[in-house]
Structures are given as C-alpha cells and as structure tokens.
C-alpha cells in the first residue's frame, strides 16, 4: 500500500548528533526510551510502530562503551522482533575498532566479535565513518558503508586555517601516512612524517621528523586522538624543527584520561575533531578544541541508502 519511511532511533551515546541528523532529514527522532532497570540491566522500550519501516539506529562507540553496545544490540533485536523491514546500525565511531588483529598470543579480535554480535542481533546494514582499518568491512557478511570524513576535513582546512597554501601535512606516525598523503595530494601541499624510534623498551621514544617544516604551518592529521600523548610530542618535535604553528585534525576525538591537560600544555595552536563523539563538555575545559560537523554526511548517507541512490558521491564531495 504505502511505501515505508525512515525511522531514526537514537541510543544514549550521542543524542545531540542524532538530533542534528534528524533535523537535516526533516523527521523527528522516534519515540524510544533507553534506560536501566534497578539491577543495572538495560531496558529498551519502543513507543511507536516500526513494522515494515526502514529503521536507522544511531549509536556511537564512546563513553560507557559496553553499556552503549548492549543498548545498540537490544534496540536492533527489538526492531527485528517488531518486524522492521530493514535495520541499519549507524555507528559514527565503531567500538573496539583498534583490536582488529591478533597482535600477541591469546589476544581477542574484538572488532570481529562486535561484527558478529551486530549480525546476530539482526542488523542488515552498517554505516560507519573512518574505520581504523578499512579491512574491518570484511569482518561482516552484511553490506558496510565506510564513510570518509576527508572531504569535510579538506573544506575545514581551506576555510579555517589562515595561510593554508603555505602549510604542510604531517602524519604523526608511519601507519597514517596513506591518509595524510591523500589529503596532501588533494590540496597540492607538501607532506612530512614523524617516525618513532625506540632505543630500548620502556624508554621514552625519540621522535624523528622526516621532511622539512621550516617556516610552514604544520597540520597533523590522524584518525583518532585518545590520550593525545603522540600529538603532544609531535607538536613539540615540529616546533623544534622550525614550524610556525601546529594544528591537529582528527576524525574521532576520544580525548580520554589526561588528554585535555596534554593539549592545553602542549604547543598545539588548535585541535579539531569531528562530532562523531560528543565533546561539548570538553570544549569548556579546553579552549583549543574546535569542531567539524559531520551530521550532514551521515544524514545524506541515510537518505541515499533509503532512496537507493549512490553513496559514493559523498566520498569526494563535502555536503553543504
């Protein structure tokens, strides 16, 4: 009879982002209550019908990760038993993404476990942003859309960093070189790399700069900023080598532990993160923090998935 519509459900991890996405799509968030019973078990109640609808559940892997992960799984399962037509899990920051290989004996591959759990709970499709390793898409049997924050980062650099034409893109470690060179190519800028040298185990590693940053604005680019130890040391190394200012742009700003103190005390001019992880509280404590809004990218991906249009346009163009 009637075609189905988009229903957006939000968990407790990042309600602000979910509201932005819903506003962008012109709908309201669905009426869902997610709380805890007195014995700490998660309680999910869906207050409206989702029968035969296209359901998108927005939950980011941040804050109390295990609680949020269980909330997501239970919401997916609830929608499945409520006969939703398709359930898409939208995870701006994928949880446990850094444990994606067995790097020592008896290490769990938690990313694979999370992929299994999402599939078992009943998710038909997964949308995420800037996975730590894009091979994680292969852990799923279901379709995965890995969106890129790169176009938004490029636009930010062009609009907000004065003198960006004289800047240099720096990767704070060898693993992120590919990401940094891609941005450098788009902007037609030079590229540099910081290499960590370990003399012995347990000794503070020395950072070696490969490339020339003298008198240039250095822009550090990484996918995640957790404790910010690496960023702080990198900024110091760059200033010692003659950079005029150091900016840091990361997609997922976890900023746990003493990260804010490290940033405040470091030589960084500004640290820019996207809003895949909520940080409104942190901005009050750290004036150097700035935000790139990616709700438009996620909302566009949701709209295109629902309408059956191509999503690859988003990989190269920043949405308005």
């Amino acid at each position, binding site marked *: 009879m009637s075609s189905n519509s988009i229903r957006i459900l939000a968990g407790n991890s990042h309600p602000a982002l979910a509201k932005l996405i819903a506003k962008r799509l012109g709908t309201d968030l669905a009426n869902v209550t997610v709380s805890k019973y007195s014995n700490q078990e998660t309680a999910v109640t869906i207050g409206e019908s989702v029968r035969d609808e296209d359901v998108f559940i927005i939950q980011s892997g941040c804050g109390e990760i295990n609680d949020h992960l269980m909330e997501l799984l239970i919401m997916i399962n609830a929608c499945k038993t409520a006969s939703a037509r398709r359930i898409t899990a939208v995870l701006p920051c994928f949880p446990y993404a850094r444990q994606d290989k067995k790097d020592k004996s008896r290490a*769990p591959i938690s990313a694979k476990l999370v992929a299994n759990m999402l599939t078992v709970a009943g998710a038909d499709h997964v949308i995420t942003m800037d996975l730590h390793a894009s091979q994680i898409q292969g852990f799923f049997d279901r379709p995965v859309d890995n969106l890129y924050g790169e176009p938004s980062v490029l636009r930010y650099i062009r609009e907000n960093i004065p003198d960006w034409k004289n800047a240099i893109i720096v990767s704070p470690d060898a693993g992120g070189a590919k990401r940094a060179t891609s941005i450098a190519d788009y902007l037609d800028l030079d590229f540099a790399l910081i290499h960590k040298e370990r003399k012995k185990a347990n000794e503070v590693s020395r950072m070696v700069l490969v490339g020339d940053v003298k008198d240039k604005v250095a822009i550090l680019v990484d996918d995640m900023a957790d404790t910010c130890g690496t960023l702080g040391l990198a900024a110091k190394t760059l200033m010692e080598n003659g950079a005029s200012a150091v900016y840091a742009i990361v997609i997922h700003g976890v900023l746990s532990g003493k990260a804010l103190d490290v940033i405040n005390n470091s030589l960084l001019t500004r640290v820019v993160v996207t809003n895949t992880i909520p940080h409104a509280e942190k901005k009050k404590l750290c004036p150097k923090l700035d935000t790139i809004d990616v709700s438009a990218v996620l909302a566009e991906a949701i709209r295109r998935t629902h309408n059956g249009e191509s999503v690859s346009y988003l990989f190269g163009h920043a949405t308005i």
Partner: protein
Amino acid sequence: MKNIVLLNGSSHPQLAKKISECLGVELSSCTLGKFSNQETNVEIKSSVREKHVYIIQSGCGRVNDNVIELFILIQACRMGSAKRITVVTPLFPYSRQSEKSQRKRLPQHQIGSEIMNSLTQHSGSSPSLPQGSFAQSFMGMSMGESGYRQWCARAGTLVANLLQAAGADHLIAMDLHDPQYQGFFQIPVDLIYAEPCIIQWIRSEIPNWRQAVVVSPDAGGAKRATSICNKLNLDFALIHKEDLANTKESMGLVGEVQGRPTIILDDMIDSGSTIGLASEILKRHGATEIYAIAVHGVFSGPALEIINRSPVTAVACTNTVPQEEFRNKCPKLKTIDIAPMLGEIIRRTFYGESVSQLFVHDEQA
C-alpha cells in the same frame, strides 16, 4: 586435572577462587581491565591451546560491562585454539527478560488501573465503552490514538544468540528464572539447582524446622516451594496477589501459618518488595518466625533497607552474586555457599561423568 583451564571474569572473583580451591586447580592468570577510553581489555597470560576452558562470570554488578567482558574472554580463548569452552554463569544475565512478565514492571499498568477506579467513581462512565480504552484515551498516553502498545525489548534470546556467536560450546547455569530458557540455545545447557544446598541450610540453621511451613510469595514459585516441602515433609502455603484493585484484603494467604515458623522461598531477591510484602502478610496471619531464602540475592535499590525494616527474622541467599557488602549493611543476611556444588559440576562435566547423580541423594528426613 590436566588440560583444564579456569578463568574468571571480574564479576565475582571470590566465588571463582573458592571453586578453584574446591577443585584443587589454580585459576589461570588473566588481566582484566579497561583501556582509557572505557573499552574492555582482556589478556590471558597462559596457554589455552587444546585445553578445556571454564569461564566463570555472573550477571551482577555492572551487567553490561561483565557481559561484554565474558564475550571477549570467550573470543580470546577461541582465537587461542581452546578445545572446548564452557561458560559457567551462577546468575545468568538478562535472564528475566525472556518472556512477557516484563509488562508487570511497567508503571503504566498500575497507573491505568488507579485512574480507572477514580474515573468510575467520579464521572460514572458510560457502560458501553470498554474500560481499557477509556483510560487510555483520557490519558493520551504514549499508547497513542492508534492504540499502539509499548514494545518492550526482551533481551533473553539476544543474549543466548550472542553467547553462541562469541563461540561458547556449553553453558552451565544455576536456577534460571525460566527453565524453558534452555530451548533458546543450540548448544547443550546444564541447569543446576541450589535446592540441595538450601535443604541442607534449612536442616542445620533453622532450629524448629520440622514445624515450619514453606511459603511461596507468588503463584509462579509454587512448584519450586512444593518441591522442597515434599523432600522435607513440611506443610505448604501460598500468597496470592490480585493485579488490579490494590486493597489489602485481596493479598490473600492460602494455607495456615498461625503459630508456626515460616520459610519464604523465592528464586531472586531484587528490589525486596516481594519479600517485604510477604513477610507483612505472614506476620499478620500469626507466623512466629519468618525466614526468607532466595537463590540469587541481587539486592538492588532500597532492598536492604526494606528487609531491615520488615518482620523477617533472617534472610539467606547463595553466593551466586557477591554478598559481602550486603552482609555488612544487613545483619539479618546469611550466605549459603554453592562453590562446592559448582566445583563438583565442573569436575563431572570435565571427566564426562553423570551430573544428575548430584540431585538424587538427599532422601533422608
């Protein structure tokens, strides 16, 4: 016992230690913690290759953290080429969310009936309308004009599926709230009962147990209570709750307790309200002493205060959930130790012996 590995999660390390002492096997060292961004961090320090691994984790405390930790432990053992992974859950997480009784937990249910009563008294509602829809449309609840009822997520099947997806081969659970839950699994499930331990406790700790009456605080637990009465040759009574109309008379006691000590039996004490209410009723009907025995002592929220204030003489719970903190706050609380029973189960499943032998030996009166 060679080729066995005992691992414990962070939910109940004391129980795991007791079990390892009963078995004479050391707990394998395993670091459990969290990364700075709150993701769970698990490191198993010794080899599990080709060994039979038993993971002991209870669904208490911070349930979601413990559940994810359990899944990650199972996965780590699977990746470490363990031969067989058995999960031992003294209290199974999300076990009460497998069936429709969840509806009783929603406050709307009670609000609905109270408002219904006040409506019929004041406005003399038209008799042609069915009572239910009148109350709903009056409140304009989230039930909505379309009459859609709230959909309460039931996480029971989900947790069963997740355990299997993580890689468990076998599950040992104690006194599941809902015994049909075994059917949710494809893998073999061994249910063990705390009943023998409870019977032993009754015989040794309740001085005049031979005159006692076993009481079930609701209709659902009648079968559990009668099973113990038959083994001890005692009388039985039942407390019956009426849903609507919360008048006190309708909280009926079926059976006689006048002048007798009573033993209330339930599978779980969570909010404490059932035990509190049941003990008031028994006191009113003339019980001399009131003992409350439950398998799982979760004691969330104001449960301990409710018990301290109630006419209960003593409360006994097994240590499926850590009980030390609760004992400090509530002097009436005693603990029944089930570590030897769990240890026996682990030994028997490891050697491939019969487990049902454990449940047929207590025929002495």
